[in-house]
């Protein structure tokens, strides 16, 4: 079996990311759910880089997609939409928290001024 350069670089990089996640988990900088999800993602990327044809063909057969290239494109699009949704959700949550904090500060300040006057 002949390996291309990317088939060495990508799995090594994936292992690096998994190692980094594990370190963050040990330092309590990441929850176990975060670490597990991240490790699963990067291990999948590493394994996919090692066996791209076999995995993409299996995916294409599983979902009834014509070719393995199409399967990769659909899979990547799905992944992008998922991350887009996650980012949008996080953004909305952080915007709501910022507004809440802003309003709290304003009302506290107003209360102080009312007590002084």
């Amino acid at each position, binding site marked *: 079996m002949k390996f291309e350069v990317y088939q060495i670089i990508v799995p090594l990089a994936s292992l690096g990311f998994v190692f980094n996640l594990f370190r963050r988990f040990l330092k309590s900088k990441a929850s176990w759910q975060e670490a597990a999800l991240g490790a699963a993602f990067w291990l999948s990327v590493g394994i996919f880089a090692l066996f791209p044809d076999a995995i993409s063909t299996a995916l294409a057969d599983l979902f009834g997609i014509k070719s393995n290239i199409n399967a990769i494109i659909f899979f990547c699009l799905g992944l992008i939409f998922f991350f887009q949704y996650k980012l949008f959700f996080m953004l*909305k949550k952080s*915007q*709501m928290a*910022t*507004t809440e904090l*802003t*309003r709290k*500060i*304003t*009302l506290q*300040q*107003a*209360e102080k001024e009312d007590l002084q006057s």
Partner: protein
Amino acid sequence: MIPPEQIWIIIPAYNEGPVIEQVVSKVRESGFPNILVINDGSKDDTAQQARSAGAKVLSHPINRGAGAAAQTGLSYARRRGWLYVVQIDADGQHHPEDIYRLVKMQKESNADIILGSRFLEPSPGIPPTRILYNRISNILTNTFCRRSYSDTQTGFRMLNHRAIRNLRLRLDGFGYCSEMIVQAEEKGLTIAEAPIQVTYTDYSLNKGQDLVMGITTAVDLLWKLLFYPSKMK
């Protein structure tokens, strides 16, 4: 008739330095002495101008949007136990004497919220783009309402103590206009409409919602209505 002293006029304002003093003065001249300006993190002298015109001013440390400013006004009204508030826009498009039309409608209908509608007796000079934008917003909002309203995006509204006590707005931007109506119906508050006049100037046209902002507002509202219906209650 409700005495004007019992009514607080709430004006959410962002970078309205050039006009806010005039807007506050006109409201005072119309017979309403109690004015609260919510300065939504303006970078200009909006707060000073409003204060010098005789308004009480609450300032957001950073800009959070018209909805956030309106909610701060309502929270403050709740804390102070105010009985009635009228919210108007800070860009000078509304005529303060129309507050009396809302007050009259409130007395006649005993509704909890009175919407000042620009389209019951349409003022001349409303730009066609505004009419189109408002029609689209009306369709979108009325889809989620039991009743149909002629101007769901109006910034001219009167709320009584029941509405002040029960409403909890969560949308930061202009989507709060629709959110207030949908939430009010969910909470069993009653809504009526009264005709108002508006005067659009180049200044006020530049301050309102444009198409991009309108689309963002619609997405925000739909996101909340479809994915977080409980948060609209």
